[in-house]
């Protein structure tokens, strides 16, 4: 709600300022980026301007606001040419008619999963720069150098840790995103996909046999005291940082916090269930093109020749270390074991569905997790109800 309000504020400001300096102008580039990418983009923009005499203006705004502001501002003709964003915005932005297809000059430069994440109905919508996927952090001081490969092993380790008054595992709860590997390991899925990669929003596979099995394991970990119950992200983090938990399931955004706490840690993929590895959601970030740009070709040249370069990608990495989607830079970046770990975890992942119907999925799914975490419902019941609710909600709005 606050976001929508701030959108209104943007409109008013734009109207009051009545300033053409904020709009996409033929022969000039306007780029919206978040604070982490801002310095790099300013530098690249200045280089481009110096070399070609094309003014490049880089505007900084909070990452999440970029999506909302684009929807408010672009249709009025005041928007940017290029934005930075996450792949899961794609569904909304494309159905809203706010994005333009990007003509990627050389697709072999990018990690395939990152290109897939930014593909919508067969078209590419971004030059990806980073990917992310969740995995297992382990505290080497507590469990040694070799992480468990399966949940069975993890439970065995957990029994010993319990005697010391420690938890084996922590993860954010209730959090469908982090819990997805439990559902996907034995065949659960969010939406069924046809051969062309188009998702069917009425075929939800979160309550199928495999998904329920994984969900039951989740419940068992809670009931046996292997996994801490109802931990929000911050609580989870402090348990792991203080050595009160040996394993933590989360993603690359946690590296900074774990390092600063001085934990001797490793990062690997989420353990297997009955020999099958869970498939985490893969996310990607990239540069997208506004449908209202006045500089389609120019922006494509800028992205293909100035952003998709080793120098720019390394600079982006140095500013905010994330596993890269750009293969020529991967060799250097993946020397860092953390980055390599995430890249490997992502290889087994599936792109997080980007269709707008996901909004309805997160809510109901999260409720199902919470009911099980609170011990107010069984996994079968909770997830079956959730799927019914998801399908009903999606049907209602079709």
């Amino acid at each position, binding site marked *: 709600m606050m976001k929508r309000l701030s959108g209104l504020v943007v409109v008013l400001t734009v109207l009051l300022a009545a300033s053409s300096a904020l709009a996409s102008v033929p022969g000039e580039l306007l780029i919206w980026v978040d604070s982490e990418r801002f310095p790099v983009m300013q530098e690249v923009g200045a280089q481009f301007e110096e070399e070609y005499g094309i003014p490049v203006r880089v505007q900084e705004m909070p990452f999440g606001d970029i999506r909302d502001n684009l929807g408010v501002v672009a249709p009025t003709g005041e928007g940017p040419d290029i934005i930075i964003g996450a792949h899961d915005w794609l569904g909304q932005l494309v159905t809203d008619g706010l994005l333009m297809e990007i003509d990627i000059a050389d697709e072999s430069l990018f990690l395939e999963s990152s290109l897939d994440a930014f593909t919508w109905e067969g078209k590419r919508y971004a030059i990806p720069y980073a990917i992310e996927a969740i995995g297992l952090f382990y505290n080497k001081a507590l469990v040694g150098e070799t992480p468990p490969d399966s949940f069975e092993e993890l439970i065995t380790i957990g029994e010993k840790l319990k005697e010391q008054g420690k938890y084996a595992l922590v993860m954010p709860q209730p959090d469908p995103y982090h819990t997805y590997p439990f559902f996907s390991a034995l065949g659960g899925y969010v939406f069924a996909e046809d051969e062309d990669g188009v998702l069917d929003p009425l075929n939800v596979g979160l309550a199928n046999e495999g998904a329920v099995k994984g969900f039951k394991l989740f419940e068992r970990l809670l009931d046996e005291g292997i996994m801490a119950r109802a931990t929000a992200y911050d609580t989870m983090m402090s348990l792991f940082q203080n050595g009160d938990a040996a394993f933590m399931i989360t993603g690359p955004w946690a590296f900074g916090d774990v390092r600063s706490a001085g934990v001797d840690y490793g990062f690997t993929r989420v353990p297997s269930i009955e020999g099958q590895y869970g498939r985490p959601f893969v996310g990607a970030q990239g540069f997208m093109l506004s449908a209202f740009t006045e500089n*389609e070709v120019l922006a494509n040249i800028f992205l293909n020749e100035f952003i998709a370069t080793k120098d720019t990608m390394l600079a982006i990495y140095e500013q905010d270390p994330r596993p890269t989607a750009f293969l020529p830079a991967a060799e250097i970046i993946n020397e860092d074991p953390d980055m390599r770990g995430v890249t490997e975890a992502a290889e087994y992942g599936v792109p997080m569905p980007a269709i707008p119907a996901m909004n309805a999925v997160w809510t109901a799914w999260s409720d199902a997790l*919470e009911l099980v975490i609170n011990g107010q419902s069984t996994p079968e019941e909770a997830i079956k109800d959730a799927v019914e609710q998801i399908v009903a*909600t999606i049907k*209602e709005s079709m």
Partner: protein
Amino acid sequence: MRGLSVKRLFYGLGLAILNVAVIWCAIYLWGVQSYGLLALLLLGALALNALFIFPGGYPYRYLAPAAVFMILLVIYPIVYTVYVALTNYGTGNILTKEQVIQQFENRYVLDPDAGNYTFRVYENAHSDRIFLFTAPDGRLLLGRSGELEDVTGRDEADVIPPGYSELERRDVIRLSTELSALTFEYEEEYQLRMRSASAFALYIKQYSYDAGRDELVDLISGVVYKPVNGAFEAPDGTRLTPGFRIVVGLRNFQRLFGNPQITGPFVRVFLWTITWALLSVGTTFAVGLFLALLLNDPHLRFRRLYRSLLILPYAVPAFISALIWQGLYHTEFGVINRALEFLFDTRVPWLQDPFYAKVALVILNLWLGFPYMMIVCLGALQSINSEMYEAALVDGATTWQQFRYVTLPLLMVSVAPLLVSSFSFNFNNFSVIYLLTRGRPPIPGAQTPAGHTDILISYTYRLAFESGRGVDYGLASAVTLIIFLITGTITFINFRFTGALEDVRENV
């Protein structure tokens, strides 16, 4: 006389500056075709000018700024919300029909098998440009004012007229937006368009809009799309994205009332909303008043220190406090439960149990809200004449009687309207609910996304932003209007019932 003319000059100058600003904005609004806002602006400016020019408008001058802001910040949003409630505005339908048609008209499909046409550009002193293309099959094509000519086998110096010189790559990129506007017809159906800094490519125009028949034709497949319910639809029901914004009349309201998925939890949510608002006002007022009475006692030492400390919760942003409280309430690791465990050997499922989640919310809101009530009551207590207490003392009234028959009634005169507005505020207190419980705990087996602690406004949020199609502003605006009607009615009845406004007026 002299003073008057200086004043007039001052007014005149101010009015002139204002009018210049208005004209500037008006030109801009005209430019972006925002005629509604333009009319509003001009009317407003006209009215303001009239106030200053005609002597009869004198008293209204002082009301004018308030009126302007009222229109801008209250009335305009309300009108706009009513308008949105009557449209299908939301994910997939945010553009206008014209914008959508324009997007489809500009959609070109790259012919993937045709390959790239590398090019060189030549320019003369008048900025006339000639292109020389090398086709994938090796042919040489000369492109000039939209026409292509096969010049295979001829020499470059032979085809390029004198006076033209080749543009460097640097200039090609600099001029790429201009150059990309130049396209060449190629064998009827194709267009040769700029693709990158070094190549053109063949594209096929995909859609054409027939304004007379209001149809969109797919030029490749021949399918005809007609606008149905805010999107172009093929005879087989396929709908093209993006869709566009249309007025749908009362359909959002029909969805709201005709759908058991939505109406089902409405009564339950409504009752909890009322309970929540009443409890919030009641508890914060009781504690605030109690503390105010203590702090008002002249015998109390360090009063100023206490007062400053007690205002602190009010000074800390609610967003931060709510997150801290979320940690305090944690069933296993929270400080509150650890203390309870230590003292009474018991744990309370604060955020998991429906009842305790509600208690937790009321406690949090009490923490956030009592300083406001305390400040208000302190102010009101100061204004009560001390002679009243002396008289009461002479009559032999006990402390309780003093409070009950002197303090409270006199306090209520000034505080009652604030209690009513506090009720309305808490009725819509989205942030506290959303930050602490997000409307949870969920209800087992529920067919709707409403949780135990959802109030109307947080439920609206779920309907609007967690819907099956993404974001649904139209539906959200419809619910907002209904909430507005409910709060409006309650507030109105409250004011009439307490007579709050009348009393204040008598006291002034």
